């Protein structure tokens, strides 16, 4: 857990610190988009820290695509 | 005048009387120490010349006639310059001119008379060749420019002089071949060279620092040479050469990466030999950069990659060494750096002792004491030799700097670390610009021109054809020469 936190802290600080100067000069729209992506980052970080899997991109795909994909592969295999 | 230059005991102040009844007066100022020809009495020669060419006997000369003579630029044996303000006159005295002030005239006459002893033209210290010219530049600007002009007798060779700022007011000159040099390059250079007016310029490397693109890159963006033949060759290729008074190094702008690995000697040998030596240099470059890192990575992370026999030898040698490979490498590299620095600074009588001391003490004793393994010493020595074989000294320094982070990466991550390190270096070199040009240009398959000078040293006939093709368009040739 601590290791994961350390890793998270390191990469987040690298990402944010190198952008600090740019962040101050960005237009409000860019800041909005930046913040939006950072929100996703936050969600993913929580997912990373917790042991259990939170719903993520794969769950979305699972819902939609996995059945037809399996069907295709089965058809081609058999 | 005396107020400004007061307290200089080497300033000679000679008052004169001349003209009808010796009623007119003039004063000449010069620095005793700089002016060479004290026998030549400039004042007297002024009067004499005027007598011969224009006016009557010395007693007849008046201030007006002198003014008239010089302002109309009569024929005169000496070349004289007129200045009309006090600051310029002071500067002229400081430059080593004899300045004569006339009572009743608001201008001053200046005669150049500088005569300081300089070094004779001798062999280059840092850039020796086996075969080829052995003249090197000295500290006197005029002599250096002469060395260049006499080799490049083209009317396209242009020379621009500037004065540096601060108290030293060093004279700086730059040369280029008009029509061959890239116009954008020249414009960019001109916009940057103005910065020399802000600082004391002691040496050409100061200029280099002022006009370079990247302050913090370890890689040098200009080449430095003390050989006029190298400078002339680079001028022909469309580079700009900068010289400064008081310094024997010439700056060649811009310096691209591939040129750092080229030496003038390549062109004094035949194609095959030169090509092979060039390959050796490229390998040396990589060795100097990565050898210690590879050693660390191989012994720590990937011992399976070393052939078994060698592996046994290495393990045997590393037996009993208390440090991990990284620390051992660091210690040996540090010793080597110390040796290097000491070797430069020691006075000559002791210098040879250092190499013996270095080899014996550091090498042998360290091994016997168990601080380092013989393999490590071999590695470090090889690395040092490899970096010496790089023609440009400032590039060798760059490698010394980069080598250490590479070793750190290798010790953390082994081969992966080296890969990442090399990628970052590659990225840095690719994005580095020198005077607006890319440090490393892309490989173009449009023609084998890149290959002509990077990997092989093509015969001169081919190079000539290539450069003639380029000259037709008035553009500078590509990154190589």
């Amino acid at each position, binding site marked *: 857990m601590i290791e994961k936190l350390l890793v998270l802290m390191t990469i987040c600080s690298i990402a944010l610190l190198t952008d600090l100067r740019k962040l101050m000069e960005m237009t409000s729209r860019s800041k909005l988009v930046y913040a939006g992506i950072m929100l996703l*980052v936050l969600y993913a970080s929580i997912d990373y820290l917790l042991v259990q899997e939170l719903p*993520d991109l794969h769950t979305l795909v699972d819902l939609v695509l996995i059945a037809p994909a399996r069907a295709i592969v089965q058809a081609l295999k058999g | 005048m005396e107020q400004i230059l007061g307290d200089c005991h080497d300033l000679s102040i000679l008052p004169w009387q001349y003209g009808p009844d010796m009623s007119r007066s003039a004063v000449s100022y010069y620095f005793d120490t700089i002016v060479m020809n004290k026998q030549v009495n400039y004042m007297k020669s002024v009067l004499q010349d005027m007598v011969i060419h224009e006016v009557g006997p010395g007693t007849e000369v008046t201030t007006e006639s002198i003014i008239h003579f010089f302002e109309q630029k009569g024929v005169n044996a000496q070349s004289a310059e007129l200045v009309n303000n006090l600051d310029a006159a002071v500067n002229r005295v400081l430059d080593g001119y004899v300045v004569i002030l006339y009572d009743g005239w608001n201008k001053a006459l200046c005669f150049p008379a500088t005569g300081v002893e300089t070094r004779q033209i001798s062999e280059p210290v840092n850039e020796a060749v086996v075969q080829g010219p052995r003249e090197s530049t000295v500290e006197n600007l005029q002599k250096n420019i002469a060395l260049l002009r006499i080799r490049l007798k083209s009317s396209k060779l242009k020379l621009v002089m500037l004065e540096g700022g601060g108290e030293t007011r060093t004279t700086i000159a730059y040369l280029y071949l008009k029509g061959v040099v890239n116009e954008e390059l020249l414009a960019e250079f001109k916009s940057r060279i103005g910065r020399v007016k802000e600082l004391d310029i002691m040496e050409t490397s100061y200029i280099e620092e002022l006009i370079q693109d990247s302050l913090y890159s370890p890689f040098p963006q200009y080449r430095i040479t003390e050989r006029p033949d190298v400078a002339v060759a680079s001028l022909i290729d469309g580079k700009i050469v900068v010289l400064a008074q008081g310094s024997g190094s010439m700056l060649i702008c811009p310096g691209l990466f591939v040129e750092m690995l080229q030496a003038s000697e390549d062109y004094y040998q035949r194609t095959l030999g030169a090509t092979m030596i060039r390959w050796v240099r490229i390998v040396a470059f990589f060795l100097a950069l990565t050898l210690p890192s590879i050693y660390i990575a191989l012994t720590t992370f990937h011992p399976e990659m070393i*052939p078994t026999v060698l592996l046994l030898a290495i393990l045997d040698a590393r037996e009993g060494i208390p440090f991990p490979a990284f620390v051992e490498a660091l210690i040996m590299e540090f010793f080597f750096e110390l040796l290097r620095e000491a070797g430069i600074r020691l006075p000559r009588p002791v210098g040879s002792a250092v190499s013996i001391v270095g080899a014996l003490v550091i090498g042998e004793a360290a091994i016997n004491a168990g601080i380092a393994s013989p393999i490590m010493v071999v590695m470090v020595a090889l690395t040092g030799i490899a970096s010496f074989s790089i023609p440009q000294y400032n590039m060798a320094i760059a490698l010394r700097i980069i080598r250490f982070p590479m070793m750190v990466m290798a010790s953390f991550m082994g081969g992966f670390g080296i890969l990442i390190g090399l990628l970052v270096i590659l990225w840095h070199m690719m994005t580095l610009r020198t005077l607006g040009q890319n440090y490393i240009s892309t490989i173009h398959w449009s023609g084998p021109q890149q290959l002509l000078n990077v990997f092989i040293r093509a015969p001169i006939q081919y190079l000539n054809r290539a450069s003639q093709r380029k000259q037709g368009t008035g553009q500078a040739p590509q990154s190589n020469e």
Partner: protein
Amino acid sequence: MMTMMKGKETINNMQMVFLFFGYLIGSVLIIIPGPLVTMAKNAAWISILIAMAIGILLLQVIIFLQRKHAGLTFIGYSRKLVGYWPTVAIAGLMLTMAFHMAAGIFLDVAGFMNSMMMPETPSYVFMGLMYIVAALLLRSGIEAIARIFSILVIIMLLFWLVVLVLLIPSYHPEFLRPIFPDGYKPLLLGTYLSFGIPFGEVILFALVLPYAGIKQLKGLNKALVWTMIGCGVVLMLSTVCTIMALGPFAAEKKYSLFTLAQLVEIGDIIERIESISGMTMILGSLMKGTVTLFAIQTLIAEVFDIKDSRMLTNPICLLAMLLAMTLPATMQEWEEMVFVVHPLWVGVVYMIPVLLLAAVTLLKGWLKAPGQQRE
């Protein structure tokens, strides 16, 4: 060093070729041919051929789109054709796949390093370092990326060739037959997989095409087609050599090219050079990952009308890295995701929108034709 480019950067054809090649080959050399051979048995190399053909067709589609809408970017002409909100939907769909790729590529590298070369190092170290390098590349602009790729691709190809050539003594051509032991179905399966990686992913390259000069597109088409063929050839050769060298075991090894390198043994000196093979795989993955991240960056920047896309580099890389660390619940699930779902996913979110856009373009052209002269 990181000065803003005045105006738009353009990349000449040669640089495009290297970009494209690096992108296509990318992670493929790690994953394929192993599983491909599992699925398609000995017909693997033929399925590559077929998938390549499909890829070339798709390439024609995106180049056609770029030519018809010269001067516009992907989002630009998409907006023109179908409107703002459908474009956002398309972009969103493409982003799902693109993020999956961006995470997956680096994840595969970490997995490779972990299982083959450096098992004790935690995967985030590998991923972190690679994402940092990718971010550095992205911040220097696409032109710098293309120039760096030109060197990396050559190094990669050189090492790959060396491994294959050094193995010539160990090849058993008889392993290649029979080609269709189980009928033609494995061939289709192989094609399905090859379409997923890498040939269907060519669509994402449509985001890079706008950086080519407008006049170059015709010559570029030819160049890129040849590049794709070259990529196909490299893959086919790898697969063929894998089958020839490993025979029936080819299907079982996951990282077949690496295994091949392990077999090299010349005299007593050149052996166990698989680390070099590993390096080339890492380089390839880095290249593909960088272009994918660039595509993501461009997509997001253009959908939201942000002028300088480079300010999004850091958050995007950060997000991709976190996705790489969180997405796969188990190795099993990840593998299924890659081999089973991926191709379909590619088809749905990449191929269909682009075909749609092409269809709309054609329609609009036809509708104009009666009244005006067609260009």
